[in-house]
Structure formats: C-alpha cells, structure tokens
C-alpha cells in the first residue's frame, strides 16, 4: 500500500514541477529572437513525434495495426478539409471497422 502512495506522490510532484517549469520561469516574458526561432519549431516537431508514437509505438517495439488505417483515413479527411470533429469520427470509425472484421 505504501509503495502505491509513494508512486502517486512522487509522480504527481514531478509532473507538477515539469509542467510548471516553462510557464513559471519564462512566463509572460518575450523570448529573445534567437530563442524564438527555435521555440516556434517545437510545436511542429512535437506534434509530428506524437503522431508517429501514437500510431506505431508499442513498448520498445513497432506495432503496425488498425491504428494506421485510422490515421490514413484521417489524412484523407484532412486533405478534403473536413472539420476536426469529422476527421476524428472518420478515424475512430475506420479503426473500429477494421478491428471488427
């Protein structure tokens, strides 16, 4: 029981600190232009990494499954400029369909 609470406490405190780091230390300040050029690229870089890991990552291995079909369906939907909600429904629907058959 104590092990559980140690994990809950340490993970909670660490996560709060990690999330707070940027906004508390750098919050409300304009970044120097040198740094700004780097920071604007964080969003596309992190989003691309999230797409890849969410789509094919298992625990230290690749998992190629129905998620890829959903992602492909989402790509088509985005290409056709569908609203976000439609894209999400299309992706979830395509994935569920493949899993059902």
């Amino acid at each position, binding site marked *: *029981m104590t*092990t*559980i609470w*140690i*994990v*809950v406490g340490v*993970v*909670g*405190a*660490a*996560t*709060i600190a*990690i*999330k*707070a*780091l*940027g*906004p*508390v230390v*750098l*919050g*409300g*300040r304009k970044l120097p232009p040198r740094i700004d*050029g*780097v*920071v604007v*690229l*964080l*969003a*596309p*870089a*992190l*989003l*691309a*990494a*999230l*797409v*890849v*890991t*969410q*789509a*094919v990552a298992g625990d*230290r*291995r*690749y998992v190629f499954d*129905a*998620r890829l079909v959903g*992602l492909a369906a*989402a*790509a088509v939907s*985005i290409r056709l400029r569908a609203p*976000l*909600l439609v894209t*999400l429904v*299309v*992706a*979830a629907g395509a*994935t*569920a369909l493949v*899993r059902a058959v």
Partner: protein
Amino acid sequence: MSYRDGARRIWPIGVAAFAFGVSFGLLARTAGLGPLAPIVMSLTTFAGSAQFAAASILGEHGGAAAAIAAAVLLNARYGPIGISVAPGFRGGRLRRLLESQLVVDESWAVSVGRGAFDVRVLLGAGLVLYLAWNAGTAVGVFGGGFLGSPARLGLDEAFPALFLALLVPQLGTSRARSAASLAALIAFVLIPFVPPGVPIVAASAACLLGLPR
C-alpha cells in the same frame, strides 16, 4: 479568442478523454491500487499515458522506482511543451503554476494548432479535459465496465488523428516542414531502443533547425 473557444474546440476529445479516464480507473482498480490512489493520481498528475504506465507497472509488481521512472520519462515532454507556450502565460508565479497544470498534449495542441497562440484557448480546453479525465477516473474506479474498451470503439485512434489534424496547419514554412520531418524520423528510429516517452523528448531537438544560420 476566449476560454470558451478552447472548450468548444476540445469537446470531441473530451469525450475520448472521459472514456480513457474510465479505463484508467478500471485498470488501476484491477492493478490493486484501491479506489483513492487512482483518483488522487488523476487530480495531481493529469497525464494519461504516464498514469497508465505507472498503474500497470504497479499491477505487475514492478516496484516503485520502475513505475516512477516510466511515468516521469513519459511526462518529460511537458518540459519543452511548457517552454513553447511560456511567453503566453500571465499573472504572478502562483497563478502561472496553477494554470500550467492544465497543459496536456491535447489542450496544448488545439491552442497552438491554428493561428496565434492564445493561453485562454489552452486553459479552456485544459479545464474541459481535466474535468472529463477526473470524472472518467471516478466512474472507472467505482465500477464502470459499461463503456467497454476505448480500443474496441476506435477511440484510441482519435488521438493520432487529432495530432495529425493539428500538425498540418503548422507546416506553412519550409523550416517547419523540415523540423516536423526530422522529429518524425528521430521518434520513429528510437522507438525500439528507448523506453516510451523518450522518443518524443528526443524528437523535440529537431527544433534546433530554427537556430540562426
């Protein structure tokens, strides 16, 4: 742009977050964490993948150190994510500390996804997700098997689709496209070699392409 815009953009993801909260509550309960610890964890940690990892490691008697290491590695990406939005935060340190807790992948992604970053969009979206995640956890802990597995409903696919949909408008410049391609490559190559979470953090190094030449 306002808090309400954030809430409006995020609600479909809020439904998925609720379902995942239910599955986290169920999994944590099955893993022997009792009813209170998962609820406290969702309230304080508020980061799905890290919580799933910690709960399943505890369930397999993996030990506190392994559970903590996995969860912290999975959440390390919130360092660079927080830095990317830091200039938008207002007010004193305590307010920034509290507001920064509403930063999760999805609230961050919908606030940077279109046009100029507005912290109110992030906070509105984050609050919806926070309520959905915690309500879901409570439902799952107290026996909510009725939703079935989010995987069976295809709900897990809503997340990569969301990130892809939000990535595309970010690719306006050639530097952004290069950074995204390099990041995707770094993350992909590292997947088999490092624990989950590390590929995302390592991929953030692709932003160094933005250094003045």
